[in-house]
């Protein structure tokens, strides 16, 4: 099969859908295909709970939002991008309002705000605790109204076709039929989300395997700041399902086994609402030092919401309550919830500038798959959905400008056959290794050596172990030899992607000899601005990961010590 669209967007999450709408709103004649491996309403963005940051409070200012973001990022964010970002957030919220997003409201009918970690003032717009769900549905509903957006659901991206540093199209497996499909395009926007399933204990959906990053990386596009992975303080034990930061924003406490609000020792001013890296580290320290509680699934910390009362919990955190009852058998109205830090956000991603452009002409990346970078070494809660909206639109508009008055570049038959051959090769694999066993071991490596506290010897082991797993992956066995809906094949390809990404994470982490934001090393506990105030860029080469560095853009805010 072969299709041809002016712009092909891969990924129908918040970022991808926002990009599609941005194009269709401005131009009715440009054809857009939105290709994704799930139906749009099933993307991972529906899981976002707590909210979306934007300046609405009268006391608040864009500069303050930018400063909080830069400080939260431990000064690794590009400040020009951050300034652009904060200035566009409020518009996006109002746009979504006009498209039907059921934002929570104040009594006088205005959009309500709640506090989130690392914010100087209340800045998180929300729709109960199902913000992402409502945003996704709002965008999806909007998309139904544009005739020039075609939705291709359950198509799995396998490769980009690039010639002379210019994009020509991509290939994707039509999961329903198993056929490899060619999409010719003048521009491609990658919006495939993060890579959270690298970790075993994670808040992410099953399908967040970093495909877009890996595919671009294999085409020679560098990945930026992959060592920075966010750990969210409150993942429900044992499933890892997120208990949103809004639990603490609404007034919840973190307690150790002595019922002490231990955050007072780590962040006396912000307490539970310090940025996530700070809180997660504090919790991990409590756990290591024997002050955690212990249950049938091991150590945990208590998230106490009982004092908020049933009324508030029902009104503000209904999803949390439902999830806690369904998945942990505990009603937060009655008892504290067992939680511990959990892998939650991929700060790194495809290296793009603030126009979402990669070094390949016509190839854009936006949303969690991209690293622009506004989150630097640590993302502030609720900045990511805003990022998807703001930079989704920017990517769409830039791609639109790019395709106007441009011709298609033909994809040669050989180029397509080459992609087909690669997939055939995997499909026919009949070795002795179970892909699922490899994935399990990969998760263990990541959970053990690239977790909240890192050190040289562990990371070296991780690099070594990932190399071994990559070798073993060559001898993998695909049992399912049928064409239609072959998830055995899809999962196996995903695991291949994850191995590449894990290697980039491990190598970049090993090289960065400092502690910054979410990357905390026991052997280098201080931030080192002299040597390490720079972005890592990982390139895939024949002999492994090559790491290069790029400067951080600083406009207004020189790095200072980070205290909360």
């Amino acid at each position, binding site marked *: 099969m072969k299709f041809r669209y002016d712009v092909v967007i891969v990924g129908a999450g918040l970022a991808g859908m926002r990009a599609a709408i941005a194009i269709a709103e401005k131009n009715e004649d440009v054809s857009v295909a939105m290709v994704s491996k799930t139906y749009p309403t099933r993307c991972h963005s529906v*899981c976002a709970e707590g909210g979306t940051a934007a300046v609405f409070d009268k006391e608040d200012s864009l500069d303050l939002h930018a400063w909080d973001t830069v400080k939260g990022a431990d000064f690794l964010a590009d400040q020009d991008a951050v300034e652009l970002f904060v200035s566009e957030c409020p518009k996006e919220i109002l746009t979504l309002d006009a498209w*039907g997003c059921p934002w929570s409201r104040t*009594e006088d009918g205005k959009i309500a705000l709640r506090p989130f970690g690392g914010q100087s003032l209340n800045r998180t717009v929300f729709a109960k605790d199902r913000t992402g769900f409502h945003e996704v549905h709002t965008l999806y509903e909007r998309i139904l109204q544009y005739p020039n957006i075609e939705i291709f659901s359950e198509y799995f991206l396998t490769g980009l076709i690039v010639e002379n540093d210019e994009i020509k199209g991509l290939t994707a497996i039509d999961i*329903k039929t198993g056929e490899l499909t060619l999409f010719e395009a003048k521009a491609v926007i990658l919006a495939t989300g993060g890579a959270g399933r690298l970790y075993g204990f994670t808040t992410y*959906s099953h399908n967040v395997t970093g495909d877009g990053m890996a595919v671009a990386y294999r085409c020679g596009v560098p990945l930026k700041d992959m060592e920075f992975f966010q750990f969210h303080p409150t993942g429900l034990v044992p*499933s890892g*399902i997120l208990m949103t930061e809004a639990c603490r924003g609404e007034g919840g406490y973190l307690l150790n086994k002595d019922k002490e609000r231990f955050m007072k020792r780590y962040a006396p001013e912000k307490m539970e609402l310090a940025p996530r890296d700070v809180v997660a580290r504090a919790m991990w320290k409590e756990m290591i030092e024997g002050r955690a509680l212990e249950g049938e699934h091991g150590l945990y910390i208590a998230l106490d919401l009982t004092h908020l009362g049933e009324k508030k919990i029902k009104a503000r955190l209904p999803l949390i309550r439902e*999830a806690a009852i369904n998945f942990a058998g505990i009603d937060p109205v009655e008892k504290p919830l067992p939680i511990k830090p959990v892998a939650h956000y991929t700060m790194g991603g495809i290296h793009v500038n603030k126009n979402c452009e990669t070094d390949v002409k016509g190839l854009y990346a936006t949303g969690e798959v991209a690293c622009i970078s506004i989150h630097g070494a640590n993302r502030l809660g609720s900045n990511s959905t805003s990022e998807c909206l703001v930079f989704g639109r920017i990517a769409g508009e830039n791609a639109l400008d790019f395709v106007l008055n441009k011709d298609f570049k033909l994809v040669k038959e050989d180029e397509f056959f080459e992609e087909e051959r690669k997939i055939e090769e995997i499909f026919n694999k009949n070795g002795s290794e179970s892909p699922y066993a490899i994935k399990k071991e990969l998760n263990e490596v990541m959970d053990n050596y690239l977790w909240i506290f890192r050190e040289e010897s562990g990371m070296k082991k991780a690099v070594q172990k990932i190399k071994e797993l990559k070798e073993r992956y060559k001898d993998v066995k695909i049992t*399912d030899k049928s064409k239609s809906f072959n998830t*055995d094949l899809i999962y196996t390809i995903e695991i291949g992607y994850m191995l590449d990404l894990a290697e980039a994470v491990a190598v970049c982490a090993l090289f960065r000899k400092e502690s910054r934001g979410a990357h905390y090393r026991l052997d280098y506990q201080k931030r080192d601005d002299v040597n390490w105030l720079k972005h890592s860029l990982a390139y895939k080469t024949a002999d492994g990961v090559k790491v290069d560095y790029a400067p951080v853009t600083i406009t207004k805010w020189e790095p200072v010590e980070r205290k909360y």
Partner: protein
Amino acid sequence: MEVIFRIKRFDGGSSYWDEFKVPINMTVLEALFYIKENIDSTLAFRAFCRMGICGSCAIRINKKPMLACETQISKLEKETIELEPLKNFNVIKDLVTDFEGFFKKQKLAKPYLIRKSKGEIQQTPKQLEEYYKYTLCIKCGACVSACPVAKRCLGPAPVVAAHRFNRDSRDEGKEERLKALSDHIWHCHFVSDCSEVCPKNLHPAEVVQKVRLEVLKFNLGW
């Protein structure tokens, strides 16, 4: 402790039952992954968020359409558990059904905010609560599976979506929507099983009756 999963399989040609032993202390979805990763990797099912919000994993568990991710095996209190794909959808493979038609039908009900006015929008919490409940549809297809007439008509989900916007104070497109529904809303026979199975408790059966009356009034010009 273990239980037996009897799974209705379909390989594109024929369908047959398969049995697996799985541990009891997990959700149905976790057990499906357990089978896929340890026993039979050809088993196909859909699963994404595993927290009851993406709507991918609705299947029939002991005949009742449910979300596999939200269902603890132990709570089913059975030693043998039957898993089948949703009814009223074409089966693609094993527990995976074709949702293209479902999403196409959704579109017929104009499930989006129609608003021409510009300018700042206000909506009080009370106005929000008027429709909020109906925003919670995760489009899992459980209601369609439970409905004996859904295959040949719109099915409950799109009507709920239309109702959600009809009640939204920001919306200006109720008439348009009622007109669009005029040709599609009469097939309901109030079996009301959709209300019994909806994992988000949206009571589609009630909504359909309400919308039908609205369409009726609209058409009669009352």
